[in-house]
């Protein structure tokens, strides 16, 4: 399913955070959203999973306006892995994952055997099957992150938006998670901070600066020394990965006054 952010303007408490953002995420592709802190990445995503309504512009899924849909239909179309992890009650992992079926079961009730199998399968795919009966509040940050991804998968979305999904994860699970979303039969819009992981997993990369689009294209086109200097304020070497040929960003510590020139 195609996702298109069309002239999107989003404000928080009257302050416009995202400015006129137009971005295409073609069906089945993985598009990475990069940018320094405060550049509007999370705010843009929140409009896509309907936590924050846009001031103007639209979010189109196969041409249909996502915000004109019924909430439940929108939640069957778009699933999200958000940065907010906190649960307030000590649900078991299996219960949290099963809540991914909520948009399909608005009246509650028992899950069908097929749905239970779907939940078990999702937990196995993100390597949390062994935690099924654990209380969610006893999990580590990385375990919780994987549980929440399982919940998003159980939603059976056509579009998956992920906000820094590799946070808290160890290296093995970072790579596991990214290869899982790359292989999944969904359209993916993902915010990442690790440029090398972004280069490895994304078909296209969009860079935000001050809430507006600074660059968009393939990892080769976007991840250049000039862009990193201009947008992130760092000097970097870009080299091709010896096996995949994808761009890799090599960073060294700056030689003088490190905090100078960091965009406010």
């Amino acid at each position: 399913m195609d996702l298109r952010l069309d002239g999107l303007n989003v404000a928080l408490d009257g302050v416009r955070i995202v400015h006129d953002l137009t971005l295409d995420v073609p069906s089945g592709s993985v598009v990475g959203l990069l940018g320094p802190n405060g550049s509007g990445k999370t705010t843009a995503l929140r409009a896509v999973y309907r936590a924050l309504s846009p001031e103007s512009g639209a979010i189109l899924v196969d041409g249909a306006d996502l915000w004109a849909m019924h909430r439940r239909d929108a939640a069957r179309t778009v699933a999200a892995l958000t940065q907010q992890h906190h649960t307030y009650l000590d649900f078991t992992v299996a219960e949290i994952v099963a809540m991914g079926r909520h948009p399909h079961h608005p009246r509650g009730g028992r899950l069908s055997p097929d749905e239970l199998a779907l939940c078990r399968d999702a937990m196995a795919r993100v390597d949390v099957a062994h935690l099924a009966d654990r209380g969610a509040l006893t999990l580590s940050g990385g375990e919780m992150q994987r549980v929440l991804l399982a919940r998003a998968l159980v939603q059976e979305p056509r579009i998956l938006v992920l906000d820094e999904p590799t946070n808290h994860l160890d290296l093995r699970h970072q790579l596991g998670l990214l290869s899982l979303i790359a292989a999944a039969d969904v359209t993916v819009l993902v915010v990442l901070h690790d440029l090398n992981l972004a280069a490895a997993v994304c078909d296209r990369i969009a860079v935000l600066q001050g809430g507006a689009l600074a660059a968009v294209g393939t990892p080769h086109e976007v991840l250049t020394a000039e862009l990193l200097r201009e947008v992130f304020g760092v000097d970097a070497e870009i080299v091709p990965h010896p096996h995949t040929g994808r761009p890799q960003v090599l960073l060294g510590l700056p030689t003088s006054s490190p905090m100078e020139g960091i965009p406010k």
Partner: protein
Amino acid sequence: MPRLDARAHPETIRRAGRTLRVGLVAIGLAALLVASALVAIGAGPASIAPADTAGYLWAALTGGTIPADEVSRYQIIWQIRTPRVLLAAVVGAGLGAMGVAVQAMVRNALAEPYLLGVSAGAATGAVSVGVWGGLGALGIYAVSTGAFLGGLVACAVVYLAAARASVLSPLRLVLVGVAMSFAFQAATSVIVYFAPNAEAASTVLFWTMGGFGAASWATLPVVAVAVAAGIAILAFRAGRLDVLSLGDEAAASLGVDTGRELRWLLVLTSVVTGAMVAVSGAIGFVGLVVPHLIRIWVGASHARVLAVAPLAGALLMVWIDLASRTLVAPREIPVGAVTALIGVPVFVYMLRRRAYLFGGS
């Protein structure tokens, strides 16, 4: 695979088979509740055996006959004690369920049904009617109606003060609710202080400590219907309460509008709690402690918690009311004092348990 983990985390064993158990727990509690009600109806200055109590109740319900020399005992059972015990059960059930709802609504472990100002507003309403009159057309129900309306006004004020633009945050609801409770308490104090008679002070005492002494067949059905409808609606929407407690962002991504959920929960808990406070005053701790105890027992899922919490609340309240009217008979200890005496140690014990977590604290 879960077996391996069970060894590492003993808590896992406790959670196993929870779904099966919840039915058994509910049936067991219901049976205990019926038995306790019979005992409680029989107990008092004129003690009557449970079998005789059952006989009188049967006669009342089926229109049977009572020997002439037993009529006064029958009157005590049917006209005084039965409505009182039933009211205790209804209010206990309501407080248990509304406690669950308010805790889910504001996502706070310390939340209880009076958090958003219902009881403070009810006291103000009751005292206002008592001192200044008004609602005279309602006769003996004027003060109760004043309490109910006062509770609703307090909640409306809390809502209007907490809502900003389209956003209604749980934390702001709590803060405004606590602040408004103080404001209404202050208003009540001022009214009582300048009241021409001493009656106002005892009215306030009743509404802040609570009690079932005023129970009658006339008021019971209204509260019972409000509580039953409230619990049914909550149980019907248990899945949404689950999603709500995952937080705003997750709820939005699962198609639940948290603002709308908060609004209907606020209306529902205010109306049901207001109806309870109007007839029995503000009885503390039951609405706070019962939801936590039940979650320790059956887990966090609202479908399970709401199946058990009303029964547990009702059972607890029947015994607390019995204690309040028999321990120092012929005097009564205010029910609110008994619930606090029992509730505080239970709550402290609960917070010291490491296996029970709420909000990660």
